[in-house]
């Protein structure tokens, strides 16, 4: 039996990598990927807790797993919209560098 801490540590590591990549990388595709990475880190944590809670309470607890599906659905929608935006931005500005896409400011 793998202890829950392992899953949580793995989730935390994945999440941190996602955050770091989000902050460091300039290519908007990579940034997008790092968001997916963070989402999946959270999913992993959800599933781990769901399983742990089932063990503790003695019967099946699916709330966490349900949330994972929600996250996946939203992530898929987000990917569709996000990629569309990225393509539109690329067509308009001919670049994928996030630092040069900073028009939304005062």
């Amino acid at each position, binding site marked *: 039996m793998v202890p829950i801490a392992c899953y949580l540590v793995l989730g935390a590591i994945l999440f941190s990598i996602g*955050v770091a990549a*989000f*902050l460091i990388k300039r290519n908007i595709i990579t*940034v997008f990927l790092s968001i997916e990475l963070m989402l999946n880190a959270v999913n992993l944590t959800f599933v781990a807790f769901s399983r742990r809670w089932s063990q503790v309470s003695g019967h099946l607890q699916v709330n966490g797993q349900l949330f994972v599906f929600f996250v996946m659905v939203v992530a898929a929608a987000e990917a569709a919209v996000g990629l569309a935006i990225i393509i539109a931005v690329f067509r308009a500005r001919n670049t994928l560098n*996030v*630092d040069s896409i*900073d*028009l*939304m400011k*005062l």
Partner: protein
Amino acid sequence: MNADLHLWLIPLVPFAGFLVNGLLGRRFPKALVTTVALMASLIPALQVAVIVTKFSSLTLPYGENLGAWIRSGAFHADFSFQLDQLTLVMLCVVTGVGFLIHIYSVGYMAEEDGYWRFFAYMNLFLFFMLTLVLAENFLLMFVGWEGVGLASYLLIGFWFTRDSAANAGKKAFIVNRIGDFGFLLAMFLLIAHFGTLSFSEVFSRIGSHPAWQGGFLTAIALFLLLGATGKSAQIPLYVWLPDAMEGPTPVSALIHAATMVTAGVYMIARTHVIFDRSPFALGAVAIIGLATAFFAATIGIVQTDIKRVLAYSTVSQLGYMFLGCGVAAYSAGIFHLVTHAFFKALLFLAAGSVIHALSGEQDMRVMGGLRTKIPVTFWTMTAAVFAISGFPPLAGFVSKDEILYQTFVSPNGGKILWAVGLITAGLTSFYMFRLWYLTFFGESRAAVNDADEHGAAVHARSDTKLVLEAEPQSGHSHGVHESPWVMLGPLVILAILSIIGGWMGWPEGLGGNNWFSHFLEPAVKAVHLPYEQAAVALATGAANAPNASPAGNKQLELLLALCSVLVALAGWFVAHVMYFAKPELPAKMAAQVSALYALLRNKYWVDELYGVVIVTPVLFVARWLLAVLVERGIIDGGTLTAGYTAQGLGALVARIQSGNIRSYAGWLALFAAIVLAVSYFGWTAHLLAR
């Protein structure tokens, strides 16, 4: 059981006229504006006529309550109207004279640009004046009171492009506000002591407490008096009325002679129950009235502008009305109000006709010899001059004599007050005949008068002083012409009223029955006069004495009337000598008593005194303390500082919004980490524990 009289319609019809002409009049053809305005003043007059026919069958006072206006705890003020003898008299004057002046204005204002505006304001004035007269409580009366002030302001400043007119309007409004302030304080006191502003409730409460004398009633009466002095142009607040002559002449006739300025007299008569309980306040009314009558008359004798002479005359005659009220002879005061409305409106309208004939000239020094050129104006004005000067059997004689007689016999008046009143009557006669001679007799002193000019005549005082030496041809200036009949008609009607108007109050001492006074008695009979009771108690010890005084005094009344007539004749005679027989005399006399002449000519320097004592300090405070320190320093400074601070902080914080996604994410991550750390390590709890 009273039939429904629909009193509320009386003020509302002129208001409808105001709305129609005021909102749409600009686009209306002139004839339609005229029709609306005349209808709006005729219908109330007809309604009042109907009420007069039904009047004897009414149980008085007749009241109408249209519903609640203000309710606050136990206090309430309603839209309620009332009708009694006093109201009826005022209604007749306001609607009757008002309608005549409306007709006259059709001719007088025919060539003005703001024709529709003028009639809209006139109707507005009628609305407020009728509200004032019909109101059943102090608050509704105050609405009318303020409203006539507004209409007066608008009409004085009718030619608002002229600075002097705009300033005169402002002056009238501001001086009136001082009086209104007194009225307001009186109302606050009434609410504090009675918890109501309804006339009937206040008066019946006072009536049921015979022990209430002076005290807070004196305070209320004096504040009401302050309000009356403002509206009725009495000392110390009379200064606005002469300047108000900047307005069109029909306005001077309607508002500043016949109706609005008499509102103060009406108010005192209406609230006489309060004044009756305060000998001090009554004395103040009498003294103020008499002083005003005398001083205004002395100023009137040296004025050269025809309308200003009449303005001071109005102030002086209003002083008589106050004197009448001040000796508790309210019906005498109201009677003089009525006759004065006739002959002073006539004087103003006739003066307007003269001004019209001379294409806007108002200076009597360049008039003269108009008797044959404008005969109808001359004869109607003559009737008015003889009426105001107090020649029997004309209206002014009857009413003025009533006041002087009452002053003589009243314990509140006395022989000294009577003597001053008599001298004032002589002065009145003098300045009126001076005006009469200067305007209508002798040779024409007008130097230039272009016949063609009249087409585009503006009825305004020409600023250029005309040269006094007359050329032969222009002496018979062919531009002078009689006014159209739409103007002369009202003159003739008012002239007839000025002659016969006094007969309804013909004194008992001269074989009459003083019907007017008996008619008004139920509404304004002085009750619970403290000094009277005291005097009676001292003199006779009897309780039934109050009716005893006038009965045995018919000879006295006759004697006093004879004195008045002699004094009026003397005034006429002096004016005749100075301005007809020896026209060079006035200049010589002015040179001889130059100090006195300068004093009168400059109106006792009252305007200058007010300027130094009140206006200059107020302006100083306004311009320096308030404008510079408070407004620019504190108010502007405060708001600007607040604005700049917010702007600066905003600029600082706005840097966070760089538009760079990664910086946003960085902030997000940083603060999420902080929140996480705090919740995990219990940072705040740790700090608090230490």
